[in-house]
């Protein structure tokens, strides 16, 4: 049975000349697998991720024929039940730890906040769980990190702390929106490996939203390519090189490779794609 079913999802925002549709009727299913959503800025990939968690606020509007998470209808769920779901059963890792962690709260207390909201553990049990989760994201000295403030840790460690916060309650679905683009290359692989490891161990579903085709191809099972609010390509990650849609082919061709012999890189012809 699939974990998440989405049919005909539409997201729009009011503009000067009527509503602007940023996600135009997309449908997909997610099982306990790793799904990558790729696209360029403005393709609607982040809006898709946020609408699953119902994080799109007015004046934006979200409609869908069907949006179900493990049998629960996400469109009609009350705000209270939605809050109980977020963080506990589905969670989101944001792009930049610098802006997503509370700067005036110690890291350990921040992670423990999730527990005090969603569980009935007492303070000592909470502390123990936090230390365990820090260890799970390969922080070697959790006791020390527990007491630090966000500005005292590096970007890579900040992102691992965010992941610890998101997985402490072992959610069924994790959405990672550009989880590594604020990080240094050498740390990116490490953060992705940790996420990958958690996904295989706990069997949760993972959606990675990114603009980096190569990274997604390496860490996901399946890939959706979005362009202009629509899914233009859906394929197995291993099949990405044989992509059919001209947009995907264009994206792949426009990336330089390690062994680059082309004199000029091919550039996407947007007018031909009928896009913006």
């Amino acid at each position, binding site marked *: 049975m699939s974990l998440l079913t989405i049919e005909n999802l539409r997201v729009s925002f009011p503009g000067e000349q009527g509503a602007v549709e940023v996600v135009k009727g997309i449908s997909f299913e997610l099982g306990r697998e790793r799904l990558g959503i790729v696209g360029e800025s403005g393709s609607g990939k982040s809006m898709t991720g946020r609408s699953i968690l119902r994080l799109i606020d007015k004046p934006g509007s979200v409609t869908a024929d069907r949006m179900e998470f493990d049998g629960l209808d996400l469109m009609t769920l009350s705000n209270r039940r939605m809050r109980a779901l977020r963080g506990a059963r589905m969670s989101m890792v944001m792009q930049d730890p610098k802006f997503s962690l509370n700067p005036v709260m110690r890291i350990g207390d921040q992670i423990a906040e999730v527990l005090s909201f969603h569980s009935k553990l007492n303070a000592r049990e909470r502390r123990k769980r936090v230390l365990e989760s820090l260890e799970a994201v390969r922080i070697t000295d959790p006791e020390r990190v527990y007491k630090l403030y966000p500005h005292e840790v590096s970007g890579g460690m900040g992102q691992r702390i965010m992941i610890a916060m998101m997985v402490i309650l072992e959610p069924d679905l994790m959405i990672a929106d550009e989880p590594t683009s604020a990080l240094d290359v050498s740390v990116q692989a490490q953060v992705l490996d940790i996420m990958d490891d958690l996904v295989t161990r706990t069997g949760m579903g993972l959606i990675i939203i990114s*603009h980096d085709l190569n990274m997604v191809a390496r860490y996901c099972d399946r890939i959706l390519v979005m362009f202009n609010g629509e899914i233009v390509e859906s394929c197995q990650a291993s099949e990405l090189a044989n992509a059919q849609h001209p947009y995907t082919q264009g994206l792949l061709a426009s990336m330089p490779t390690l062994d680059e012999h082309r004199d000029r890189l091919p550039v*996407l012809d947007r007018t031909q794609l009928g896009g913006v």
Partner: protein
Amino acid sequence: MIDLKHLSIAYGETSVVKDVTLHVPEGGSFALVGESGSGKSTILKAIAGQITNWTGRIRLGEHDLQHGRDPALIRLCQMVFQDPFGSLHPRKTVDTILSEPLSIHGIRDQNKRVLETLDAVGLARKFRFRLPHQLSGGQRQRVAIARALMLDPPVMLLDEPTSALDVSVQAEVLNLLKTLREERGLTYFLVTHDLPVVSFLCDNLGILRQGELVELATVDQLKQQRFSSDYGNELLSKSF
């Protein structure tokens, strides 16, 4: 064209760049790669004159770089920054951004030069009187490149010029940089962590680790993935 001899930079007790010696010939394109904190941006800043407490020798063409403010430097090298959203003045039009260096250096024919440079970087002339927020990321980066070209410097310092851009836009900007270099015989000094970009744009590269130059390699070595240092090969394995 660019000659660094025993360049060292320290902030207080911490030494950030340790005894770096390298040479970039005229018309060459050199890339400095390494992780964050390896000191690659610091070297770039020293060449650009933003850091003055370096020791050793920095030579650009026939000009020995002075510590402190160095007016001659500005005509010799210009820099393109990573983030086109942060590096353009939000309340100045493209025209003002481009003609400002001309006014400062008392250069005439401003109108003609601005239009020529807009053409050179492939920006339509209708963009001349727009403000940065009316442009896309790729267009802004073209403005930043145009600004660097206004004084016709022989050397361009590029600090991760495409890492803030989408892949398809990155291809456009990389093509532009390659064309400009061929047409004007520019010397590029690029700082990046993106090895494929180096493979496309550069002839030689230096690998930096914790302020030390670990290896100087040719781009062919990169293409064949055959670095002689362990650390170079480690970087290769981390690259997607």
